[in-house]
């Protein structure tokens, strides 16, 4: 297993360099340093001299290869430096935004796992009945609704009609739960349709296996079959799909945080792209790549835990 992990980490290095190279090339393909300078200078009409000075101060006048070399060495040393747009220390910003994002995303992540698995199992256990039919129909219906509608409906129902949660806002510390409940509920409900439908098919695949028939023949109760056997065997595809959500735990969710005023990292990358803040873009893309790679590596390792037949070699 150790050899496997080392090999995967070496691949990861290659992926990191490639992703950074693509980001670098795309950045220069989409905008010139002059445009970036103009975007980040606060004047109505920056003078050519100010533009030139800004480019010089931020090192965008160096040869491209030298910029890329510096860019890579800084990233690998995890020295992200300062934002091009406002001079803010990038690590400091990540440090201040990550706790809120992490709290919200963790609650939403585990809440969503619990709810979707339970619902999918329940629907699967009613297979063939009208409950299964209606359940699947509801899932498809919920998948067709855009996420923004869930946000606005959630704010309307829980914040405006029931008035039990703040519409938006955040306080750190113990009070934080009050503010993350509504976005977490919206996030869980918003992703319910697609995930329940997907997990239902995973469970149905397992339910039709021979070992389930054997268990039934031996008189094992339906709940025990579902929770002890089917769930365990369907865990591998479920783990694979959940791994994709791991980066969002740290990097936040874009729409949710924006509408619920959560001071997280959800909009950090989008804002940086909007304002052509390359220092932040490259740092966040790099971090995103690392968390994705780690997420998938952990998933692979977790396969060995849920299925003893899996060997990592």
């Amino acid at each position, binding site marked *: 297993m150790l050899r496997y992990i080392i090999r995967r980490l070496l691949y990861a290095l290659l992926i990191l360099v490639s992703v950074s190279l693509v980001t670098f090339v795309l950045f220069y393909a989409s905008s010139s340093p002059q*445009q970036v300078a103009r*975007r980040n200078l*606060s004047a109505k009409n920056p003078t050519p001299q100010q533009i030139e000075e800004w480019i010089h101060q931020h090192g965008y006048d160096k040869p491209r290869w030298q910029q890329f070399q510096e860019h890579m060495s800084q990233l690998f040393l995890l020295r992200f430096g300062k934002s091009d747009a*406002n001079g*803010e220390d990038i690590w400091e*910003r990540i440090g201040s935004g990550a706790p809120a994002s992490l709290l919200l995303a963790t609650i939403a992540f585990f809440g969503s796992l619990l709810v979707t698995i339970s619902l999918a199992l329940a629907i699967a256990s009613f297979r063939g009945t009208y409950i299964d039919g209606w359940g699947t129909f509801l899932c498809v219906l919920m998948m067709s609704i855009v996420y923004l509608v869930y946000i606005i409906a959630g704010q309307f129902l829980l914040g405006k*009609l029931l008035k039990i949660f703040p519409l938006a*806002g955040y306080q750190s510390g113990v009070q934080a739960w009050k503010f993350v409940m509504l976005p977490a509920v919206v996030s869980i409900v918003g992703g319910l349709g697609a995930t329940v439908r997907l997990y239902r098919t995973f469970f149905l695949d397992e339910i039709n296996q021979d070992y389930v028939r054997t268990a039934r023949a031996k008189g094992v109760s339906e709940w025990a079959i579902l929770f002890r056997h089917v769930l365990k065997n369907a865990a591998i595809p479920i783990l694979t799909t959940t791994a994709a959500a791991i980066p969002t735990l740290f990097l936040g969710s874009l729409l949710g945080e924006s509408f619920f005023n959560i001071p997280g990292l959800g909009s950090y990358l989008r804002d940086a792209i909007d304002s052509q803040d390359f220092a932040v873009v490259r740092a966040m893309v790099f971090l995103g790549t690392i968390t994705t790679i780690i997420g998938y590596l952990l998933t692979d390792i977790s396969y060995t835990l849920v299925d003893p037949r899996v060997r990592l070699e």
Partner: protein
Amino acid sequence: MRRKYHTRKLLVRGIFPGTLTALLLLTLTGCNNNPYPAGETAQSIIYSAISDDPKTLDPSIGYDVASSSIIDNIYPSYMQYNYLKRDPFVVELSLGAEEPKRERVAVTITEDGTTTTTEGERWTFRIKKGLRFQDDPCFPDGKGREILAADFLYTFRRLADPAVPCPIIQYFDDKVLGMAAYRAHNAALLKHQKPSDYTFPIRGLETDPDPYTFHITLSQPYPQLRYLMAMHFTTPLAHEAVERYGKELARHPVGSGAFVLAEYTPKGRIVLVKNPNFRADYYPTEGAPGDREAGLLEAAGQRLPLAEKIQLTIVREGITNWNLFLQGYQDFAGVSQENFQQVMSRAGQLSPEMTQRGLRLHSEVGLDIYYFAFNMDDPTFGGLSEPNRKLRQAISLAIDSQTLIDLLHQGLGQRAESLLPPGLFGYDAHFHNPYRQYDPSLTRAKQLLAEAGYPQGIDPKTGQRLTLFWDNALITPAGRVQIGLIARQIAALGIRLESRAWRYPVFQDRVDTGQFQFMNYGWVADYPDPENFVFLLYGPYKRPAANASNYNNPDYNRLFEQMRAMDDGPERLALIRQMREIAMQDCPWIYINHSESYGLTQPWLKNYKPHPIALDTMKYIGVDGAMRTHLQQKWNQPNYWLLLGIVLLVCLGSLPAVQVVRARHNRHVRRPSAGTV
């Protein structure tokens, strides 16, 4: 064994779900939608929202509204705008002890080796004694020291430092004697990665034996300096703060204003609290006509600031802010296209629902102009030749500003017929620009088009319809509506309009480098002097400076050079009228509108009056915290009955599942061999 089974069954079926439901309901009954800590809203706090993080809180750099609305409340300047007076706007003393004195002096300027003597101006400023900076660790013992004249001069040196991208440096660097040389000297140092040299002399900045007095000498008479001394760029800066925080000054302001920064959470909130070192400043005792009746003079003579704290929440989505405002958790809200129907009645008044809540409506008239501009270097549409001038006049006659105002701005704002917006010296409400009078039949426009050599919009050289390329940054859905409208209006003349929409930085780059034929832009006043508008067509300020169309008429330029140094009076007015006439005939721009918008405030907010220029206005606003708490509680009682209804509905919805389980169980009991898959 049997007993154990029963206990587990009891736990699983009864006690666990029961306890969980009870806990959940208990938690929910303790909930409310108040986003602030309990009891906080009863205090003297102003709750406001900004749409994004400020770019910077550095007073030498910050220019956008989000940044300035915070900076201005922390950093005062020598002058300030009177909070209540309008038409004309009144600039009065803030940190200044007396009105600046101006005297004409002869100054020598050496340029390209030749020395000339010209008439310049020497200004003398005297500041109040006993002013202090806010307390900050950058000062010995953390106590803010006294502000001296040298701190103002230090600010000017910093503004001219090329490492500090001051957005209004062009107002100073060709006027303050020696500033251009200082900039060049420091630019050379910057190029070699060396720190700026603040000891390099600037001839135009002088200290005085009196530590509270300083002088600024300009190479030309420039009365507008008085207004610039009311901008946050000219606030006195403590060198201790700049040296200690460097670029971090962008997030660590050290000022001397009514408020100091207490908390800054990116994407979260910014909290300003009352500055204990703030000077003795009082609410104005006189206002504009109607202010007394509106209750705006009730606080007359009171010590400022009236509120203890300002909490600015970063609310990115308009709909979120609007809902928070309706719940009473925000003190201000703008009236947008989305909520216009809800706020306004058909009669143009506040709707009954809003009136009942005690909300107040404020009209905010902008000191600005929005316009279309031709590239005057374009061979077809630019230049000062008679046919091209007529072509521009024809297009100007085809664009109907009123339709744009009605459809895009809910009918708010005023059609623009010249450069100057209402409220400025030189604005003439009775003036009618003959090339901005829209006639749906386009008779005159078509006639001018034919005279320009394009009958019915056909270019005789190609036999095709003339095409006008319009560069813009209208990439939003509302922007596309605007593109469609303009294209239809110009198509009615027989000319084809081709829109090229870009992201804003790309658009700005194209404008600055002259890669356009036709574009749309706006200008918001920096200070209330007509010079701040008419300079937009002054030839020498060609792009990338403010004159983006590169209009260059020597007559206009000559008149501008005369008027800019004059004080307001009949002579200046006559020059402004002549310039208006020249620009009207040449038609480098198509004037569209001067903006107006509506804003709402809560009933507990006192003395709010929007000012189109000043942003240091938070100190004048008061709050009735008791009224706010009472109304917030009244408007936000949790609706437990509805919650119970929803819980019941969910229980009812799960009944069919229970029924299926029971039926399946019965089937198992009756026919154990059948099996169900």
